[in-house]
């Protein structure tokens, strides 16, 4: 089975959610700035690579975990992604789950993400994204725990 955490740019929230799922980040406390910044692919994806699933690892139940940025047309592209799996690849409905992480994002992460990924102001934007993630980290943990129970 494949679990894909999706967000706008594939650089912050989907990376954090999939890192929590994989156990790269803790679930019992809020991670430090260094821990978040050392998460694989965090604040790394260039905008031109949006749409390409980023493989984050295989979890304890042999589920393959991915992060994915879908840009502004997340609803439409999520449908196409599911249809690709079911109609083209002939997989059954239990084979893939796409989890939208965007509702967990706060203003700080959005502004920081824009500054870092779009405007190239990495030194200013990256700390803002980390601060925003830390503020809402418990919501990320709850989402991942729910996904692990459901899938």
């Amino acid at each position, binding site marked *: 089975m*494949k679990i894909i955490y999706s967000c706008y740019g594939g650089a912050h929230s989907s990376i954090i959610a999939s890192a929590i799922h994989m156990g790269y980040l803790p679930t019992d406390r809020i991670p430090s700035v260094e821990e978040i910044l050392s998460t694989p692919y965090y604040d790394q994806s260039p905008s*031109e*690579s*949006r*749409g*390409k*699933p980023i493989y984050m690892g295989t979890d304890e139940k042999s589920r393959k975990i*991915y992060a*994915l*940025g*879908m*840009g502004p*047309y997340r609803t*439409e*592209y999520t*449908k*196409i*992604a599911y*249809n*690709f*799996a079911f*109609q*083209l*690849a002939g*997989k059954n409905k239990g084979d893939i789950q796409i989890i939208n992480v965007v509702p967990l994002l706060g203003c700080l992460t959005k502004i920081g993400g824009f500054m870092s990924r779009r405007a190239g102001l990495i030194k200013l934007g990256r700390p803002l994204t980390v601060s925003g993630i830390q503020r809402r980290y418990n919501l990320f943990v709850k989402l991942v725990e729910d996904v692990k129970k459901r899938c």
Partner: protein
Amino acid sequence: MKIIYVSNKSFYAAVEAAYLHLKSDIPENITNVYNEEGNFYYLGVDRELNEIYLLYSSKYNYILKNLLEGFSDLYDEKILTIYLA
């Protein structure tokens, strides 16, 4: 291989190109048949045994192109995307 004709605006052109590829006549009243966004419509198999599909998405851009390529890697499916604007 799966060949996907994708269109966002001139959907009729994509349908026509796909049927030309199949060397087949276009059915009548196609506008009401293949017009649901995001669906992959299977049209048939060409002489080289490639499966021909139609995809209509009004939101086509480089992200969708990446998505299709990315998912073809995920599912180990060889695809060719032909985009008709």
